[in-house]
């Protein structure tokens, strides 16, 4: 479980971010408070991505497969962070 959670962490954070954003849009609606919440959430998610990326980089790669997994997780965190930023933009810029 832990191994999968690390490998998929970037995408999992993206999913959590997206569905909370959708929940805010659907159930709470547009407004200053919603936008503030979205900005805060986007910031928090980006920070978690950065922290996890740093942690992944520090993990000792034990062998080729271990290194491969870490690289996948790292790239996933990068893609996840970009997607989170992109996903938050409609609310932050509009």
């Amino acid at each position: 479980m832990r191994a999968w959670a690390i490998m998929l962490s970037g995408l999992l954070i993206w999913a959590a971010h997206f569905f909370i954003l959708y929940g805010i849009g659907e159930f709470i609606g547009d407004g200053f408070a919603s936008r503030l919440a979205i900005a805060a959430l986007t910031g928090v998610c980006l920070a978690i991505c950065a922290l996890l990326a740093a942690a992944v980089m520090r993990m000792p790669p034990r062998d080729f497969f271990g290194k491969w997994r870490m690289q996948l997780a790292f790239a996933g965190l990068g893609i996840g962070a970009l997607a989170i930023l992109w996903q938050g933009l409609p609310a932050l810029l509009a």
Partner: protein
Amino acid sequence: MSSETGFDPALYARFPTRAPRPDEEKEELAHIWCAPKGWDYLTAVNNSYIGLYYLGTAFLFFLLAGILALLMRVQLAAPLMEVLPQAVYNQVFTMHGTVMMFLFAVPAVEAAGVLLLPQMLAARDLPFPRLSAYAFWAYAVGGLCFFASIFVGLAPDGGWFMYPPLTSKAYSPGINTDFWLLGIGFIEISAIAGAIEIIVGVLRTRAPGMSLDRMPIFAWAMLVFAAMIVIAFPSVILATLLLEIERAFGWPFFDAGRGGDPLLWQHLFWFFGHPEVYIIFLPAAGMVSMIVATVARTELVGYRLIVLALLATGFISFGVWAHHMFATGLPPMTTGFFSAASMAVSIPAGIQVFAWIATLAVGKPRYSAPGLFVIGSILIFVTGGLTGVMVAMVPFDWQAHDSYFIVAHLHYVLIGGMVFPLFAAFYYWIPSISRRPLSDRLGRWVFGLMFAGMNIAFLPMHLSGLQGMPRRVSTYLPGQGLALPNLVSTVGAFLLAAGVLLFLVDLVRNFRFAPGGGTAGNVHDAGTLEWLPTELYSVRSIPVVASREPLWDDPALAARVEAGRYFLPRSATGLRETIVTSPLRAEPQYLQILPGPSPWPIAAAIFTAGFFLALTVQAYGFGLASGLFAVIAVLRWLWESDRRVAAERVDIGAGIEVPTYVTGSASHGWWAMVILLIVMGMIFVMGLFSLAFLWSNQPSYWAPPPAFRGAVPILLLDLAAAALAIGGRRLLLRGAAWPVVAFVLSTAALGGALWLDRGQWAAAGFAAEASGQGAAVFALLALQGAAVATGALMAGYCAARALRGLVTRPANTSIDLTMLFLAYAAIQGLVGALFTRAVGA
């Protein structure tokens, strides 16, 4: 090297073994996995047969839906044609879309998985052969009955996404819509059964040493595909269930006049429907990645990035469902989120396309039939992807919505993303199952006709769409500039059909099924394991995998595998068996005894089909009996499973010993149950979403729910049920004789909690027919009822096994799985009781 399970990787150095293996071992394997004869073809469960039946049936549906497409194109060839009356046209486009999406595209790729994965992973078979057989027969029987509805004028006619209110009883009073709802509901069960098989198969039956980074990209694609089915299909299962209940009993989920909302259907449908496009595309992309490397005679460029792209597509595709609803008046901010995700999802698809182009660029491509189909697929898919990015822009979508521009876009994506890769796969992989390969010369003609036909048919549709031709119209007036593009489209469609016809000719001339060996062999000089010599038992011995393209890196591997120099060169127990390995590094864990042929999967499938069809024509008595027989057949097939063999540990090669029976979270059964519970959990979560959605969109119909206080005894009973279930398993671990008593008590507690919960809602004056809120709450209670009934059945089954002395101590898989299910049902009951009281409190 590190280990995942405690297995010492140094043991791999014992392979290849040196001592010669006796020929009798091969004979014994051939005997155990012998080919069926006569009627036995119906009871076969081996992936070589089921995979082929599955693929053949899916292709048959492609042909049938293709004929419907041609009929439509004839009708649209010129203005005011009278080939198909309007009402029939509605049935024809609905059936065409539905059959293509549900009966061809998803089953075809699932079938390819069942057929190819065991060989690709060097497993003897996937872990649940009978489940595969059930999934196939359910699909085949149900699908053919569903298709037959068109011959009696009862085919559904509300479009492939069946929007209410058009499909509500008021506007579609006949049983046409019920055929769709029940037929599709049923086929989804088969898709989920297949997905469970594929996930557990890919993660647990890979050849030793095939760690995730060495897994063929097709296996990765199938893994993501199956996981997406598990998350996406529950939504449409729930949607079809709710609409059918609304039509049959008047519970107003989608009736805006009574507190329901037709947009709820669109959310539920598209939460499945858009990922469905990627569900179809990903395995096909996996096929392209495999073929492109062989065709270019080089390693796939960007393997790691492609894996990441597959995973990212799997995730992001769940954030795009509402882009089908831009024209419904979603809140602007929400529209923005979905627009952003819709653009983002093209990035992973782009990564794959660039990786394929790079592979072709660095290699020395052979422009054989599979190579041409791959290149054609890239061109067509990219065109469809670009128009996809166009319609992801909301203002453009408002213009193009429901026009022929969308028909063009979706066909470019689906044909480029799935049909061309499938034809590439036919030309590529048929030599691995047939005595003769298909003809490359004919294949090039097939490609030429299909590629030209596809573009001539669908390119002009962009134009007719931009000129204002709406989709789903059976005709149009002259003088609007639509006649020429439509005529050209029709010519193109027939050209495409000519290509498919030529392919059939090629198939008849050259395809000679050779499940028992003697195939054309590795004609493309490919590097992956499915090109090892195989028989019905798959490979003679299961190799240790040390790279992604083992046959390229070790040309002598095939000979050594055939000589039995690796794992499992013989049957260790005299039964069908395969090695179960760990999910990350594929370290050998235990030997799984595989079930053999059985009439029960097909019997269960026929009765399941009978159940659903009887409901459609409102023959409730027959339906009930059929449902009962289906349950009995499933129990009967399970009864023969979960048995220990005499030897507790066996040698699987080179003196390496593994157990023959494993329980708990390491067992394949546990994994399958967890996946099934995720499916059930998703159905339930979508039910909770439906309730919250109706509350937020129809607040004027909302009444205060019963007080939280009343939920306390319900929670206590549910907690007791969970504790009893877990306690029952513990009792067995401690050697107690009657753990099933705890299960029976657990079921009683679950039933009590449900009874209390339902009573409180009824006492508060709620009724399912009265409002959207009542309907949603009682639907959730009904789901819980289904879980409790299933739990009771499982507890009864365990009791029967205990009476027969089949519950082995100190641990037993049937007990484990029942415990998991009961504990899940308790959590579901508890969450439901709290959530329904919280919404609108």
